[in-house]
């Protein structure tokens, strides 16, 4: 084994114990006092450090309006970490992190604040050796994006010194329709090169979602039946049991379809339906996903094949819940959807004629996200009708969250003297085995940002294609009717059940 000169001789592709450690770098979080930052980002940074995946001298800069000193910020991170981190708190890891923590106080329109940010970054380059590599995490409402991005440009913070990088991380929503998404992209891309912009869709950071690709392309037993000859239809569900909580300001006017279907569900659909990528790198993946999204066909009669709803007062899991229109800060005449179900087709050889039903909603029966691939019935059954009366359709269900895993449902003989066949399910419990140490989605995604690995981030074209799919539906909804009401704690409005009944199908109870 002669070391290769020029490359790091300690690195070896065959040495698979060595984890990918991010190079010298720092993370700047705008809106660091927010919920996401406290519950997800700071704990994820700590967990990464605890797993030894952050570079020595990693820097974390918080930017917010609050009057904090560096120590207050460190205390805040400390509290967030001890409350929400996945891995146990260890003093020496904390010591490593705390040396690189800084806080910059200011408004987004405050030029001085951005100058202070700049000098803080330069100070960190000297004190911590971050080498000018910084990622800006915009954990702020989208209306502030243009301002922050412009400020970064104005103060030269977006220009990476020679040999280093500057990256922008943005959270959904990526606009509220195609036009606004394009505007947003234009604003961000004016300052950051497209390959330096990372759009976080935390679903893609989940192990189960990455496992869809492993399941489909590393095995032989699923792929041959993964097409219109065997699949009857696909149901993709993301249900939440909570209401809008304190997010009235954000949620009203956006709604379930824009909040969830546009990004999470269409991404899950793309991963379920796409062809095998030529390789597992970002370009090859995005090419296949874009092909599927581009081939999506909307139903002709949007009224018959899409449903939107609003939760009404009811009981959710033993607790009384108010209706959407009665929530604080919601216009009692609001037309915003808290439930959306749509039917899509994919016009290609593999999927022609196979409907994909996507649904999402708040205040549904329980919190669950799953992809159910439902197969056709056997073309002929040698058993008589009474024997198979109880037999449903075979299905493969990818449970994304919670209780991550895969369920296969098939028929089996009920023990006894008569021939009776009933559904049984076979479970692969990802959760049971790997949750304890399987990383949070944000850990994976933040590490990928620092490494510059864009596999798990939707690209501009995917975002735009997704809006292309959703916009006609939203336009139709704006002009026709009102959201159907459904009692909190149920599985959505009766109209959604009728929508599937028209096709001779029914929703799974997830």
């Amino acid at each position, binding site marked *: 084994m002669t070391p290769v000169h020029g490359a790091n001789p300690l690195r070896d592709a065959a040495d698979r114990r060595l984890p990918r*450690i991010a190079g010298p770098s720092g993370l700047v979080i705008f809106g660091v006092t927010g919920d996401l930052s406290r519950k997800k980002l700071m704990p994820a940074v700590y967990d990464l450090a605890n797993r030894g995946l952050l570079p020595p001298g990693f820097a974390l800069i918080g930017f917010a309006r609050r009057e904090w000193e560096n120590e207050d910020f460190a205390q805040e991170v400390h509290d967030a970490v001890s409350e929400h981190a996945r891995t146990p708190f260890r003093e020496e890891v904390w010591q490593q992190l705390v040396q690189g923590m800084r806080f910059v106080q200011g408004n987004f329109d405050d030029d001085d604040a951005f100058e202070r940010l700049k000098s803080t970054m330069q100070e960190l380059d000297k004190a911590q*050796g971050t080498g000018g590599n910084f990622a800006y995490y915009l954990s702020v409402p989208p209306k502030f994006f243009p301002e922050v991005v412009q400020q970064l440009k104005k103060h030269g913070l977006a220009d990476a010194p020679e040999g280093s990088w500057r990256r922008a991380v943005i959270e959904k929503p990526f606009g509220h329709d195609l036009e606004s998404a394009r505007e947003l992209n234009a604003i961000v891309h004016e300052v950051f090169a497209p390959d330096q912009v990372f759009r976080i869709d935390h679903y893609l950071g989940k192990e189960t979602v990455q496992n869809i690709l492993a399941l489909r392309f590393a095995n032989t037993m699923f792929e041959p039946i993964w097409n219109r000859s065997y699949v009857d239809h696909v149901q993709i569900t993301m249900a939440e049991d909570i209401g809008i909580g304190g997010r009235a300001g954000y949620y009203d006017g956006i709604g379930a379809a824009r909040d969830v279907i546009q990004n999470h569900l269409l991404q899950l659909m793309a991963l379920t339906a796409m062809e095998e990528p030529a390789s597992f790198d970002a370009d090859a993946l995005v090419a296949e996903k874009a092909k599927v999204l581009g081939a999506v066909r909307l139903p002709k009669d949007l009224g018959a094949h899409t449903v939107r709803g609003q939760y009404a007062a009811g009981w959710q899991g033993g607790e009384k819940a108010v209706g959407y229109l009665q929530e604080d800060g919601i216009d009692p005449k609001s037309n915003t959807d808290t439930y959306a179900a749509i039917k899509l087709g994919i016009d290609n050889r593999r999927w022609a004629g196979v409907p994909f039903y996507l649904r999402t909603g708040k205040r549904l029966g329980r919190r669950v996200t799953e992809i159910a691939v439902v197969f056709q019935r056997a073309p002929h059954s040698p058993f008589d009708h009474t024997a198979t009366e109880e037999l449903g359709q075979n299905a493969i269900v990818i449970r994304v969250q919670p209780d991550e895993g895969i369920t296969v449902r098939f028929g089996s003989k009920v023990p006894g003297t008569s021939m009776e066949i009933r559904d049984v399910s076979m479970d692969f419990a990802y959760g*049971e085995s790997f949750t304890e140490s399987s990383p949070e989605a944000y850990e994976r995604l933040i590490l990928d940002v620092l490494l510059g690995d864009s596999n798990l981030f939707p690209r501009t074209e995917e975002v735009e294609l997704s809006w292309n799919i959703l916009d006609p539906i939203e336009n139709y909804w704006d002009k026709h009717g009102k959201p159907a009401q459904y009692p909190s704690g149920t599985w959505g409005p009766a109209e959604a059940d009728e929508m599937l009944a028209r096709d001779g199908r029914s929703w799974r109870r997830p």
Partner: protein
Amino acid sequence: MKIDLTDTTSSKINKALVQGRRAIGTPAVGMVLTLVIVTDEENAYDALKAANEASREHPSRTLVVIKRVSRSPRDRTTSRLDAEVRVGADAGTGETVVLRLYGEVIDHAQSVVLPLLLPDAPVVAWWPVNAPRDPAKDPLGALAQRRVTDSYAAEHPDADLEARAGAYTPGDTDLSWTRITPWRSMLAAALDQVVCEVTSVEVEGEEFNPSCELLAMWLADRLDVPVKRSLSSGPGLTAVRMATDCGPVVLDRPDGSLATLSVQGQPDRAVALKRRETSELIAEELRRLDPDDTYAAALRFGVDRLVGPADAATAQDAPEPAAAADDPAPAQEAPAKPAAKKAPAKQAAKKSSSKAAAK
């Protein structure tokens, strides 16, 4: 739940496993491997505890093979197998069978274990202490794809490492190697950040700690430069000093938890490098079940080719590596010298170490 079986057989144990699973209402679990722990009564508790913790990440069937000592000739001629079957909360996320072997059956432990292996799933054998000289040829080791030993627990770690190198079969691995993964990744990360050629290395750590030797051999193998092994009072590894053509790169951990990385021209940085629990080591070990070629290469490099602290005394007649050992900062002159050919260097080092041993 726990089922005790006295004077039993593998098939009765299998029945008890099914019975136990039914009783706790989980007829199937997604166990991914069988872990066979071969140990004595003294170490069984700790090893099993570590394995149960690791099973959170790798749900497995854990078979603990305890060979009991027979004190009288009469005991040695009789043979008996006792088993304790644990499922559910008592056994981490999998199933555990503690097997106690008395008398003759001790020499035929594989006949007990074979029927209890999970179908199709990989088998890992782990000897927390007293590993056989040639794990792959051991009757229990032969059942396993992966054989985990621990030189740290050996009486003479250096000799143990040499024996491991001699008997290495793909699939062998050692917890002393697992222990240094964080060091290796931090050193690799440190070299990612500089564009320098390393000219010599010093690995400093406590005596009788094979992890230091393994780290030194890995560095020597990868970097192809003289590597000196020096002693400190620990805990564990305490420092790695790399001399490069653009100044020293030092990773220093005096207290066993927080290390400092210093690179010439860059600020010192704190790095958390905590010594890890056995359960974490086992969990890492179970993550990959393919042969670890890097370990093989480091192991085969040979302990005798390192420049040891004892060599310094006899350094005069060992030209190349000794020069590095004598000189605390050989960075400036080392590149000027003709590169040491591997073979003579090895001979020289061998000579000096055998002399040192003779003393």
